[in-house]
């Protein structure tokens, strides 16, 4: 059986590889784009491969990212294989190998690393659990209010911690309590649904909440730059509104009877010097992120501060460093590298110019792009979705005149990035969904019913948000 399934796997990879290889081998002149250079041709093949690999996952998605980086280094860089290099306008532009490698330590990656350090220290010194305990206490023990409290806390945490880690923590607190209710009762389903929903939505709140946000920052350069505080100024209200709507929806689908739920979280705030350093650093970092207009350090620079502090005080040890989710960081790197290739070889601009977007309504383009992002995010990794779409969308934003009136590339990048977090419908959509589904309290149809409705409401909210941002001249 093992060998047979291994064989199937190999066949799957070969079949998937066949498509990009075929594209790469076709003569450049056969491509449906005029004046295509050789390097652009190679990027098309690479992009197709990336898309197929990320969608069908024959290998892990982070491996695909590294594969992209290595392939770029080998066939598209100035230090690649010598026989694959060429001269002249027909050949096109080769990328600097340093630039490709730098994607693995890009400011976005380091911003995320900073976020990881904060989250890790908070978890290690039980700041998360203790905060959850304190924050939950005002919500009493009426189930609907407890649920509101849990969703708020989950959303707030997932703004700074990974959505997966937040979900895992909250479910671990919740599952033992749910066990006291009759099995299969609606209250169990309702609570188990509320956590991943809040975690997914909560990620939208800050640039470090979820990788698509950080990737969006990558494409928002120069005059489009959005600071941490600016992002939160629209992200947090968006999260709140979406959260309340989903809460109402859950209560509508799963009405709560007159029962009480008692969520007792044990423990007390640690008061050791190290714990105090963690609290202080956490507060300081967030404050610095929010006050960049005063001190001038941008989000990326600030993100490095907790890394240095925690390592200096041995709060994050060697063993902890090993536990960092390098896969998430590399997944993002691959996306950045892919975007880099599309941009530097000129392919992105080339494609966008070739498609007559100019004739389309800008509204339609934004709506379509956001919808595609949300749709893809439901079936594949949110980050991979952003990896694939954002480079194209960024190019589209700069080259489409009609969009300029609506706010240019900023508006469409934000639209796609936020929509990429609307993968809510299926257990496979996001790791939080998978975790909640694994508790056995939820059936796929429960999740799909709520997820699909919330996905459309979310899209509506994204458009509403973009409209408001336009109205206040933010974009």
């Amino acid at each position, binding site marked *: 059986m093992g060998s047979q399934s291994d064989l199937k796997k190999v066949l799957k990879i070969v079949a998937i590889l066949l498509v990009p290889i075929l594209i790469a081998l076709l003569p450049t002149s056969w491509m449906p784009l005029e004046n295509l250079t050789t390097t652009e041709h190679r990027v098309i093949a690479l992009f197709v491969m990336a898309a197929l690999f990320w969608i069908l996952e024959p290998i892990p998605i982070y491996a695909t990212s590294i594969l992209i980086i290595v392939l770029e280094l080998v066939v598209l860089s100035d230090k690649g294989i010598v026989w694959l290099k060429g001269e002249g306008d027909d050949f096109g532009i080769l990328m600097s190998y340093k630039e490709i490698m730098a994607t693995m330590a890009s400011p976005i990656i380091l911003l995320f690393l900073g976020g990881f350090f904060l989250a890790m220290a908070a978890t290690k010194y*039980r700041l998360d659990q203790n905060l959850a305990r304190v924050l939950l206490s005002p919500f009493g023990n009426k189930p609907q209010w407890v649920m509101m409290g849990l969703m708020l806390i989950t959303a707030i945490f997932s703004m700074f911690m990974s959505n997966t880690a937040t979900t895992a923590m909250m479910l*671990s607190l919740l599952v033992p309590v749910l066990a006291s209710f009759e099995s299969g009762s609606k209250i169990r389903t309702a609570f188990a649904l509320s956590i991943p929903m809040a975690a997914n939505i909560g990620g939208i709140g800050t640039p470090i909440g979820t990788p698509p946000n950080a990737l969006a920052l990558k494409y928002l350069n120069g005059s489009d730059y959005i600071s941490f505080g600016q992002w939160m100024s629209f992200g947090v209200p968006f999260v709140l509104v979406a959260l309340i709507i989903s809460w109402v929806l859950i209560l509508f689908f799963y009405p709560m009877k007159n029962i009480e739920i008692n969520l007792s979280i044990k*423990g*007390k705030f*640690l*008061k*050791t*010097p*190290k*714990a105090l350093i963690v609290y202080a650093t956490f507060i300081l970092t967030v404050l610095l992120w929010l006050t960049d207009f005063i001190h001038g350090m941008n989000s990326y620079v600030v993100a490095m501060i907790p890394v240095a502090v925690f390592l200096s005080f*041995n709060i994050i*040890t*060697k*063993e*902890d460093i*090993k536990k960092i989710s390098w896969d998430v960081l590399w997944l993002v790197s691959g996306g950045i590298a892919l975007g880099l290739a599309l941009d530097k070889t000129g392919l992105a601009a080339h494609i966008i110019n070739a498609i007559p977007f100019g004739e389309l309504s800008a509204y339609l383009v934004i709506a379509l792009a956001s919808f595609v992002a949300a749709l893809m995010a439901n079936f594949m990794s949110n980050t991979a979705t952003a990896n694939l779409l954002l480079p194209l969308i960024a190019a589209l934003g700069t080259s489409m005149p009609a969009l300029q009136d609506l706010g240019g590339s900023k508006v469409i990048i934000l639209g796609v990035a936020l929509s990429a977090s609307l993968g809510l419908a299926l257990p496979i959509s996001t790791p939080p969904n998978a975790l909640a589904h694994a508790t056995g309290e939820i059936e796929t149809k429960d999740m799909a019913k709520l997820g699909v409705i919330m996905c459309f409401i979310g899209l509506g909210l994204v458009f509403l948000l973009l409209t408001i941002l336009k109205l206040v001249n933010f974009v």
Partner: protein
Amino acid sequence: MEKIVIVIIEDQREVLEAIARDLATFEDTFMIEECDSADEAGELMETLDSEGDYVALIISDHIMPGKSGVDFLIEMNEDPRFESTKKILLTGLATHQDTINAINNAAIDRYIEKPWNQTNLINYVKELITDYILKKGIDYTPYVHHLNQTTLLNKLRNNP
């Protein structure tokens, strides 16, 4: 600075003294806490945890007035805060069922029968503390003279 703590639980005062005396060699580096009941140990664990200390090892008797040693160790095993804490059951009177329970539900690391042998006890303590320190990612260099060299080298080889 956080301390690395060994907790000993034994209701018989003389035996408790004897265990503590046998482990006195560790006292220059590790903190040894003695408790004469599981309940007292439970409170102590809370205090140690809130002070940020590392409870590396619990050595517990089984049959004691109040909560039994195995029950206490099961509780500790289920507490995520003490997930990495090593556990030794040191007893002269545990039934077959108790022992099964201790292995399956308390995940004890060692089972020592009374009367114990000091050399063996010290070796077990060394091994388990080495394991704990490496697992927790604590810098092992200040403790190296109390660690089991074989365990240390093996672990470092696999996970430098």
